[in-house]
């Protein structure tokens, strides 16, 4: 590093490189991640660990408790699996959804309006897009840790029966990315906390009815179509396929759904960035 350049010049020179969206993006998302990591180190690990237990507790209560009454059910491709093995992938998909939505709606909204962190970041060379992407990435990183831990639990309980199950980790990150991107897009329209409560309110029925705890075939076909349009169903199916290594074109379709959801969410967030961060 040459000593002749002043720090301002250093920063300006870096920013002089061509990049998309120069008014709202400085290409320095890494600094936001770095800050997140520094903060996590000093934070209460109890809160972070609690996020891991939620799906595990559901799995134990439903899979082992309720599963004893249910017995075996039909898994992907028609193979018989234990009830615990049937719902475990759904629990992972749901937990990826919950974490991503919480982080991208409530957490972001709070930090925007009441916390001072984003305000401080935005008075530097960072643009709102650096902050938004960094925040999503941090949420995904946490989701990644949870997914790895949950998969380990599944393996220990003998619920993961294929090496393909390892792909459940990146799948969880993809599902979280889709939900986080859309969540942040929705947050850009929110004026008050109560409006975000609506999203949280929509998530519980989505969890209960998206073929998480029983197959979608119990519904009349019109209801089935509706459920199949919702994101969590795609997440659950994707996970279920991977858990037993039953890969079809449908598996790819579910993954594509989340890729599209991510792209849409990021597009809305970028367009709405000024409204979201610069009010």
């Amino acid at each position, binding site marked *: *590093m040459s000593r002749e350049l*002043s720090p*301002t010049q250093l920063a300006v020179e870096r920013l002089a490189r061509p990049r998309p969206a120069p008014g709202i993006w400085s290409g320095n998302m890494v600094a936001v991640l770095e800050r997140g990591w520094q*903060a996590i180190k000093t934070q209460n690990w109890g809160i972070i660990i609690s996020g891991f237990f939620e799906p595990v507790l559901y799995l134990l209560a439903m899979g082992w408790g309720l599963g004893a009454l249910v017995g075996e059910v039909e898994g992907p491709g028609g193979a018989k699996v234990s009830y615990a093995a049937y719902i475990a992938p759904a629990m992972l998909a749901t937990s990826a959804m919950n974490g991503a939505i919480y982080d991208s709606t409530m957490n972001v909204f709070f930090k925007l309006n009441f916390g001072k962190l984003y305000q401080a970041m935005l008075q*530097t060379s960072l643009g709102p897009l650096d902050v938004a992407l960094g925040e999503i990435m941090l949420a995904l990183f946490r989701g990644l840790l949870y997914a790895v831990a949950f998969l380990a639990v599944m393996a220990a309980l003998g619920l993961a029966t294929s090496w393909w199950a390892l792909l459940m980790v990146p799948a969880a990150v993809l599902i979280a990315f889709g939900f986080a991107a859309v969540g942040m897009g929705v947050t850009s329209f929110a004026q008050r906390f109560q409006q975000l409560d609506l999203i949280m309110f929509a998530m519980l029925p989505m969890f209960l009815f998206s073929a998480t705890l029983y197959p979608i075939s119990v519904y009349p076909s019109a209801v089935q179509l509706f459920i199949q349009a919702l994101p969590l169903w795609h997440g659950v199916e994707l996970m279920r396929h991977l858990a037993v290594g039953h890969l079809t074109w449908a598996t790819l379709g579910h993954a594509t759904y989340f890729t599209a959801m991510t792209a849409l969410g990021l597009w809305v967030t970028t367009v709405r960035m000024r409204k979201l961060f610069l009010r």
Partner: protein
Amino acid sequence: MGGGQANATRQESVSCAPYAAVVTSEELVIRARGLTKAYGDFVAVDGIDFDVRRGESFGLLGPNGAGKSTTMRMIGGTLGRTAGELSVVGLDPETQGPQVRAHLGVVPQQDNLDDDLKVRENLIMYGRYFGLPRSYLVPKSAELLEFAQLTDKASARVDDLSGGMKRRLTIARGLVNEPEVLLLDEPTTGLDPQARHTLWDRLFRLKEAGVTLIVTTHFMDEAEQLCDRLIVIDKGTIMAEGSPAQLIRQYSTREVLELRFGSQRNAQVVAQLEGLAERIEVLPDRILLYSADGEATLERVSGAGLHPVTSLVRRSSLEDVFLRLTGRTLVD
């Protein structure tokens, strides 16, 4: 009044052409023309014009809600403008926010330090937001802690700092990128007198080092202490522009005689005071008589058979300028 002065400045720069363009672009760090911010029907900043030259200490003086902070945020590109032109270090902050802010240090009205990080890490991480390398930031943070008199607090939690210390840390943080322009929004609001003087001392040093300071304040003593030149803002418009001394000369007398007759009698005696001073202002708790010689005015008041409960002769301040311009006091 203020408009006339702004016009005069503009005419000068026109008459100096063709050199003016070169000189202006090099010396002006901020140029605002017709700068406007409206929220629906409410106009927070109403078409203001001002220039800030490199190395000068420029003040925005006005009461709370005058549009000072709004103007500051538009300069930093964290708030869009509704209309008008704004150029900061030759760039438009709205479309080139990250570049503009690379030249700026921002000290907001309310400290927004990072509570999750220690004192030193606050400085280093803030520098990382500018994309600066740690190899630069580690020695720089030590230097800034020294400047802010916080070296022994380097590993403390932000929560454990006093108000004055937090303020100094916020200013030190704003200097991490060695900015050309430091934006200070109400820098000493909420500080005790000693902490204010410590802070002013630090800001003087920066000014001596050639940093352009832009200060908003509703304290006239602060404006007098810190600003080479200032604009007086009220309800989003510029009421006057000039150096503190110029403004006082132009809009007030040399001295002021403050009289208190007790809240009941203040209003009654006003008629008898007419003609004893160049100008009289009646405030709820006291009467202000403006004249070149306050002691002489006080003698004339006694000569007229009036005996106030208390009397005080003082030099005119920016507070008097503001009162003259708006009919209101700065701090209600």
